[in-house]
């Protein structure tokens, strides 16, 4: 049985906010199945007694003093935006008609 179905891939694409054509979904479902079969090997050695490592360093939270430092101007911050107006990012509509 396949590790992952086409419908599951379609759902993942929806969650990841990527439109996909039927041809893309067909292709990707097949590839995902092969890749998941290969990477599932990690389960062979991942015993309950092994602690997980999320990061190579023992990271701790880094904070700085709450003082004003130079930063981008609104024009600079908006310079790469596809659309802007009145010093703000312009977003397509987020509410439906109903």
């Amino acid at each position: 049985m396949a590790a992952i179905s086409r419908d599951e891939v379609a759902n993942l694409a929806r969650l990841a906010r990527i439109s996909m054509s039927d041809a893309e979904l067909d292709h990707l479902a097949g590839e995902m199945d092969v890749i998941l079969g290969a990477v599932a090997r990690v389960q062979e050695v991942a015993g309950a007694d092994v602690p997980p490592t999320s990061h190579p360093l023992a990271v701790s939270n880094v904070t700085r003093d709450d003082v004003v430092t130079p930063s981008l101007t609104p024009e600079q911050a908006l310079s790469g935006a596809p659309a802007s107006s009145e010093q703000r990012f312009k977003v397509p509509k987020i509410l439906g008609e109903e």
Partner: protein
Amino acid sequence: MSIRDNAWQMAAALNNKEISAVELTNQHYEQINAVDKDVHAFLYLDKEGALLQAKEVDKKRAAGERLSPLAGVPLALKDVMTQKDVPTTCGSKILENWRPPYDSTVVTKLKDAGVIILGKTNMDEFAMGSSTENSAFGPTHNPWDLTRIPGGSGGGSSASLAAFEAPLAIGTDTGGSIRQPAAVTGTVGVKPTYGGVSRYGLVAFSSSLDQAGPCARTVLDAALLHQVIAGFDPKDSTSINQALPDVVAATKKLDIKGMKIGVVKQLAGEGYQKGVENKFNEAIAELVKLGAEIIELSCPNFEYALAAYYLIAPSECSSNLARFDSIRFGLRVGDDKVKSAEEVMNLTRQAGFGREVKRRIILGTYALSSGYYDAYYGSAQKVRTLIKQDFDNAFAKCDVLVSPTAPTTAFKIGEKSNDPLAMYLNDIATIPVNMAGIGGMSLPCGLAEEDNLPVGFQIMSPAMKDDRMYLVGGALEAALLSKWGKPILDFAPKLAGSK
């Protein structure tokens, strides 16, 4: 003075006023004009900015100002590092024409040191790949054989060095993207200890693995560049607040008598090309002649490193690449005032991302989803612990570890592009270093007898002991140079139009 000289020789010529930074910069643009139509190492040339920088360095030198050792030497910058007002695409359509409003810390340090930034180099989209074929702007060609890949993801940086378009380059290494391109182009690439070079302004792929580092044609040049870009940066929350050991002095020492060098049993054998293993073993023989002690070691969990990597990196990438939402920067597709923000986002990401990036985002989304998290991402994190333990055990017995950098020499463009798993195997020897956050270097150790293409030798050193890989790399490079009689790139065929 020739463009085939090493960066340290160029620096000396500049210092002795045998050549100006403007002249040296122009010579490199001439070479780029002559060969880059065939190599395609660069995505963007910033000639105006570079010459402005060069003039500034010349002026300071004429005024007798004290300059950094690499002031006036040109460099090629991987297109994943932001440079203010210069296009930064990461090899992706989604960032085509994006000009960042700020410099990455690496770029700030390069500019402060007077290093001349010639332009931005090609790469696999968002640094995902081992061949530079995943660039949305077409592949880069290996100067040794234009029908072959220059490695990846940093194939533009490695090819620019091998084609004498630049004597120095910056790469980034998440699973081998500095070291594998160095290996297949006969150049030197170093992945510093994680946290040793700031990630501020490095467009994130997998934040717990990404690390920028120096690329060059010699170990000494890499060391000089490493010193320029390393150091604590408060803008990177994972930056290590500790000084880089003196990697330049280590490179010049050339004495490895009594050093214990571990050969990892798991990074050899099946899947490794015969000529790669032969050249690796010949290099080991040189190290023995230099008085090093060779110890064979086992790192049993390295066998699972590739599988763990292809869960961890896609998981982190699926989260990091969520920022490409068509709102704040980059591409926007389908905004017809009728479609919703979500529809526009979906269409933009469909049009803007290439196949490999989509594959990894979907894989990462799966590995992190409830119900599968423990089995996939969680298990991969445990493997990461086991790999770290393998390294700790190995470094208790030896000073550095060594292996071939990549299992094969440069393969043909197109040969593996439709087989993701075959492509992923290129990183089998480089990935463990990233998982543990330690240092890794690749330097050339000869030409494989089957195809006369360069083979890379990998040296791995414990975290913040980067000087050790430079010590061994410098000594091995000197021994091989005297054996060959000339630098390895002198064996490469001359490119049409090349100086």
